[in-house]
């Protein structure tokens, strides 16, 4: 049943108990994203030290897909270098069918696992919801591009 693939337990868990939903004082990078058509909102704040994300805060309002995607993203990016975050963004966009190519989640490849984020793959069967899953990632891209 494809609805159960979309609304996996891990998605509902992140929706109801979002991680890293606090606030970072004097963040090094911030961005606000909105989908004006459906009203979903997300705000991202990042602490970046020596080219590495050392803390992230993601807050927002919206559907389970957009909010869970943001929560899982925050979980995943803390500890990564900005280059690694950039690579991750593109892998997620491939996972969501936004960018062409293999998202690289081959279980035999070391370090290839996307973890909870793989649950977002269920959205591919629901094209109108892809933009929901992408909202935090597009916003993250904006936050990073602002610091060059």
């Amino acid at each position: 049943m494809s609805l159960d693939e979309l609304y996996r337990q891990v998605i509902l868990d992140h929706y109801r108990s979002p991680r890293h939903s606090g606030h970072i004082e004097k963040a090094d990078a911030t961005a606000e994203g909105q989908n004006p058509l459906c009203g979903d909102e997300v705000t991202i704040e990042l602490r970046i030290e020596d080219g590495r994300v050392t803390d992230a805060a993601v807050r927002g309002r919206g559907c389970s897909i957009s909010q869970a995607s943001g929560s899982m993203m925050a979980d995943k990016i803390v500890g990564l270098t900005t280059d690694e975050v950039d690579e991750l963004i593109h892998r997620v966009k491939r996972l969501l069918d936004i960018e062409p190519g293999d998202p690289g989640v081959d279980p035999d490849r070391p370090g290839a696992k996307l973890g909870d984020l793989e649950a977002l793959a269920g959205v591919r069967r629901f094209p109108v919801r892809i933009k929901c899953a992408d909202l935090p990632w597009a916003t993250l891209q904006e936050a990073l591009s602002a610091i060059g």
Partner: protein
Amino acid sequence: MIDLSHLRKDFPILSRKMNGKPLVYLDSAATTQKPVQVLDAMDHYYRHLNANVHRGAYLLAEEATDAYEGARKKIAGFINAGSEREVVFTRSTTAAINHIAYGWGLYHLKPGDRIVLSHMEHHANVVPWQLITRHTGAELAYLPLTDDYMVDTSRIGEVVDDKTQIVAISGMSNVLGSFGPVAEAVAAARAVGAISIVDGAQLVPHSPTDVQALGADFVAFSAHKMVGPTGVGALWGRMERLEEMEPAEGGGEMIRDVQLTESTWAEVPHKFEAGTPPIAEAVGFGAAVDYLSAIGMDQVRKHEIEITRYALEKLTEIPDLTIYGPLDPEKRGAAVSFTLADIHPHDLATILDQEGVAVRAGHHCAKPLMRVLGVPATARASFYIYNVPEEVDVLVAALHEARRIFGVA
């Protein structure tokens, strides 16, 4: 219960399947489906009558003009206008309200003047007035809502003060379903010499409309929400108001004479219809009011009361479901907004879609109202003549499925 199910065969789209399930179309407040009678009228126009109107000196152009003006006459009759000259074809309700704003408001409003709206207005009856306040220095004031989701008129005499020039109010909320206090708004406007405008987009399609009895100065509505085509709407105006209103758009068709530096206008209503109008759409609009008249608008209203009562009964039985709107079907139309537990309306819409059920989810072009309600979005099921009680049952079953998927205990 009034049975209009025989009408369903007139709407080809209702036999479609969505995601393998029969389409249950519950988004008629956004746009209604179209019967073959309307489709055929437009097809016939293009196949046999097509020419530009009001300017050709040949028989075909005369026939096209007769079809276009004949539609105007039908619509005038449908709303009991005093004359068909009081019916202006527009692009939509939105365009009609903008025309009043830029054709009347721009020329009559001064700094400090007041425009009174309500908290349940669609953006179409908010944003044009915000734009006009920039040009004129006029200010907006709002009638609030009561706890039972009706416009609060207890202090209307204070809100509609002697600086008020315009009172513009929805005849029926596209979110709450609540009827607007049209009689009170008209009376309050008259008492201070203001004009009154009814956003009739959700009102005219759903119950008998007598613009003379309503008493307002303007009533705006759209064809596509009453089984007609998109791209055409109507602005009814009292003749004396139309005479004092300036055209908001200039161009062909709307002039008497054009000099190098100035022009004079054609007669009402043509002075408001710049450019080639949506002729086939107007013809389809005429066929739509013929279709509704053949059913009888009193029957349409009775059916809506009954299906709304049934829907409200069934929906209130679902645990954790909140309805935003009055629960008395006599006080409201057939648009029912709700939320279910902590399930976001977009998630609800996705789940319902898998069961073939089409509902709206979002802010419904009424963001000020969403803030008053304290929710970012709602789901909305809206019913029309072709909906049957069994479709309410499908909706309710799908909502229970949503509860299961989201693990709502």
